């Protein structure tokens, strides 16, 4: 199997699907000739041309609104939003329209598209090139939300997302775009939506993470291992609808759980996960579930590494939970 980084794996997925399904089009700011500011769509313009790999005017509302129209006509648009921080001019189209189309038309007009967008911190991007807005989309009924942590998952989940009948927000953790490398199956390869991955089995504490923070969770659980704490680390992969069975099975085994995410703590996905655990596995809990997250402040520039829930903050949470 070839080694790829996440940028290459996503590019590979787009190329495979565009060759296989001529309805697939890519549109967004700078995605054409230059191949995107992160070069994720590099080379697609040369292979598929101006009708299918489209540099658009600078308007996220325009990109998503027209992509919805294209979808209604029968294309399968895969728009890119340059940074997920810049998705908000399109929020109305996503929340009021995309998420509700199937429902509000009694199923007559399902609007199917996959919005790809880089997410998260770690590139010294300050307020507007670092945020993790997943919860703001999960809270809207009708959107699926995905966030891969490895190149293979990025490829397999993107292909699954494009083929899924529902609209998907596909968050790409930009911090590990190039840093995450690994073997990626060649050719067509699908990782099903809605299935978490138990990256490291263990018995003492369940650690749930996704995207770039998965690696921090793994690092912290390695360090915890040196103190005799055996963590089970779960990569959620699909953030919504999430894989409740895998989570509950793990918590029933460990009785202890730490959820990690970059987004601010309050009303983040971690809160929802903890509530679900309370509802479905309360009597199995041996310790209060913990969240290690970004703070409830805008994402900072200089103090980025103090803000992020990196291994140095995850480890004490694991230890405290284990020793509770």
């Amino acid at each position, binding site marked *: 199997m070839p080694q790829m980084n996440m940028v290459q794996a996503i590019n590979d997925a787009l190329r495979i699907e565009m060759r296989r399904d001529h309805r697939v089009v890519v549109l967004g700011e700078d995605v054409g000739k230059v191949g995107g500011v992160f070069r994720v769509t590099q080379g697609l313009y040369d292979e598929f041309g101006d009708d299918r790999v489209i540099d658009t005017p600078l308007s996220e509302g325009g990109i998503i609104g027209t992509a919805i129209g294209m979808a209604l006509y029968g294309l399968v648009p895969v728009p890119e939003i340059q940074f997920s921080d810049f998705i908000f001019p399109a929020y109305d189209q996503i929340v009021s329209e995309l998420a509700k189309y199937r429902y509000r038309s009694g199923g007559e007009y399902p609007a199917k598209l996959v919005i790809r967008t880089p997410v998260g911190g770690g590139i*010294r991007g300050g*307020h507007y090139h670092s945020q993790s807005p997943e919860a703001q989309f999960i809270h809207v009924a009708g959107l699926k939300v995905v966030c891969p942590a490895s190149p293979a998952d990025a490829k397999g989940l993107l292909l699954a997302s494009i083929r899924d009948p529902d609209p998907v927000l596909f968050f790409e953790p930009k911090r590990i775009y190039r840093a995450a490398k690994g073997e990626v199956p060649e050719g067509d390869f699908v990782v099903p939506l809605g299935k978490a991955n138990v990256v490291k089995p263990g018995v003492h504490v369940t650690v749930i993470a996704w995207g770039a923070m998965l690696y921090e969770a793994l690092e912290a659980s390695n360090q915890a291992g040196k103190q005799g704490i055996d963590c089970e680390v779960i990569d959620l992969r699909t953030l919504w609808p999430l894989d409740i069975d895998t989570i509950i099975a793990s918590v029933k085994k460990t009785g202890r759980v730490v959820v990690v995410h970059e987004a601010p703590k309050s009303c983040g996905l971690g809160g929802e996960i903890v509530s679900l655990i309370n509802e479905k596995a309360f009597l199995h809990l041996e310790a209060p579930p913990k969240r290690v997250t970004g703070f409830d402040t805008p994402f900072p520039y200089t103090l980025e590494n103090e803000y992020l829930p990196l291994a*140095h903050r995850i480890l004490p949470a694991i230890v405290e939970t284990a020793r509770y």
Partner: protein
Amino acid sequence: MTALLQSESRTSHAPVGENNANDADRSAVRRPDDALAGDVIRTLRHDGTLDPAHDPKLTRDEILGLYKLMVRVRILDDRLVALQRQGRIGFHIGSLGEEAAILGSAFAMRENDWIFPCYREFGAALLRGMPLQRYVDNMFGNANDPVKGRQMPDHYTYKKGHFGSISSPIGTQITQAAGFAWAAKIKKEDIAVLSYFGDGATSSNDFHNGLNFAGVFRAPTIFFCRNNGWAISVPTERQTASATFAEKGIAYGVPGVRVDGNDIFAVVKATRDAVARASRGEGPTLIEALTYRLSGHSTSDDPKAYRPDNTLDPWRALDPLARTRRYVEQHLGWNDDAQRALETEMDAEIKAAVAAAEKTELPSLDSLFEDVFASLPWHLEEQREELRKGPRAKGHGAH
């Protein structure tokens, strides 16, 4: 107006004014013959004289002051790019080639007027009196940074100089400027508001809202479009099918003018006219300044990936700094000695500011939680306590 409504597209970007591109160069430029060149306000003529029809009648000191500021901005850009390449700062987004558009327009504003900036106008902030140290501290995101290390470099603020707060999301300042100006109108105060944005930003929701509201309510706003040919890698013809950006004002009832953005005299004149209109209660103006982004979009960008370097040559020939220098040399006795002295002085000033910024500590941990709200709610107090007590991140030297 009818000329403005013709449908043939001529937004694509070509130098206007000086006709010094040879044919090979011309074919490399996406729009070699600008059909509307005659509509573009230009003051500084090829022969180095000023067109009396558009002469802002600046004094000798004003011209020299503007020229020196252009040099200062150019040198600063150069040093900041170097600092970024050396890894001493994280990012810079500069104004190489756009100095006349930025400084001329800011200069035309009256003391009490206001500026709602985009991210390329540090020159305008300096012109409004922002100390260099304040700017350099922002570039380092240190404890003295006016925005406390919270935002990226080039995202500073300077209220004392009536200069607004910079945001990355494109276009948002356009509507805010309209509202700010509208508020002044409601309060019957004679101020005008200058809002900067790029050609790409004319595609944003906020551009339409800003012009529409300002048009309807006759808000004293000057919408200043720096048409520099590019939105990162996307050329102007992908932003609009209109023939010009200026004519976009027509549909909103906002007069639009085009000005040679590399001619500092013309920019001052066009902006002053707009200020005068606003002051007379005649409402907003849209100014399209034709200029060119001679650098990459920012230090994160490699422009060679989408535009061959030699396509810039016709625009290099129209470098606003060189044009202004020719003028001050011809008419105001500027010479190489004066230039050298100026550059030496600015070099020293910048070096000192950088040295001071590098010595300054990082923002405090507590500063992370300040200003989210006017006062600290319980949950942020808790989180601040957690951060204070918790282990420090790697590479966080100051604590």
